[in-house]
């Protein structure tokens, strides 16, 4: 159980950090190329709102969608951990000798 929770938290935090870094990168890229303002959703919840400011600069707003994605990723990671380690799971064995 402890390892399952560990897998969930790691998946969640890693996804959260990576998504934030990618969003920040998108902000810089969008600003440099003067991309129009964008709104990213996930099941109706805001992940990121990118607003291009005039005459220069940009503004990013993060939403609850980011947390939903992270929790989902954590669940998938914990699920995969369970799949590999469930009782009766096939052991990863060396290739058999023919």
């Amino acid at each position: 159980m402890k390892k399952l929770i560990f897998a969930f938290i790691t998946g969640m935090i890693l996804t959260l950090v990576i998504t934030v870094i990618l969003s920040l990168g998108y902000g810089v890229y969008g600003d440099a190329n003067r991309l129009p303002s964008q709104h990213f959703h996930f099941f109706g919840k805001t992940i990121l709102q990118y607003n291009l400011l005039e005459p220069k600069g940009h503004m990013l707003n993060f939403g609850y969608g980011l947390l939903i994605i992270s929790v989902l990723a954590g669940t998938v990671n914990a699920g995969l951990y369970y799949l590999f380690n469930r009782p009766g799971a096939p052991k990863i064995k060396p290739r058999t000798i023919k």
Partner: protein
Amino acid sequence: MISPQSIPFFPEGVELNNQSLALVDTQLGAAHPLNQVSCALLEQVNGERTIRQITQQLSFQYGWDEEEVEGDFLQLIAQLNGFYLVNIRTPFQIGEAVKQGMVSFLYFTRTLQGVRWEVKKRFTPHKKNSVSLLIFLLKVMAQTYSPMIASLGLAGMLIALILPYTSFLAGLTLPLFFLLFFTVHEWAHIIVFEKLTKHKLPYFLATRRGAFQFVRPRIDMKGELLVSFAGPLIPSVSGVALSIVLYFTSMPIWLFLILVFIAANGLVHLISYLPFAEDGKRMKEAVQMNKLTQSQEVKS
């Protein structure tokens, strides 16, 4: 991950004793008992033959079931590797490298957990002076922490892009000083241990997936405290001193940000002194052990 194509070999300080059926660790002064079959398999380990070649040869010789013996031998090698008694070398193969990469990624995300996904490597540095030891450690740490250094480098570059007044040089200080301070940390542990024991007690260094270890026998309480305390000392003091300088001195913003990153890298090592961290735990254990010994002496 250990595969049938891996080549096992005994590191320095580990000997197979056929008569007493044991693997003897001369550096830590420990003997690991073996059964006759394990001993027969380990006798064939010479640093050239793969696990599969050894099992094939012995299975043919004694009429054993090859598949069963290979599985058992892999398990034995994995166990011994976990105790730093066998080192593994795997010849480069594209398929194997892809598999290793996938395992590394899943281990990083903690989808895979446990020692069976790790391959440990034990080695003894034979360096004449502390400078050559430091250079040697720098190389080992760069190899061990390469994914972390690359991630920090990328993060540093991104910070330089996003934060105003931050230069690429400031971004680069993150991975560079991470490597430097961690190397100095381990180097200080080794140097103080060698000085205290007057180079008489053996030790060895070990690496595993994303971690470096300095494995040594326990010494008296004062020695344990000094060795554990010495490691994080130089990075922590550098971090604290630099923070004080930054607080009281005015300087150009770009230089200020570079020094902030260096100070942050140093201050991180203060965590090592906390009781849950490796060094803090060792110091706590040394004091507890000393108290226990004293109370037992009083009773007797």
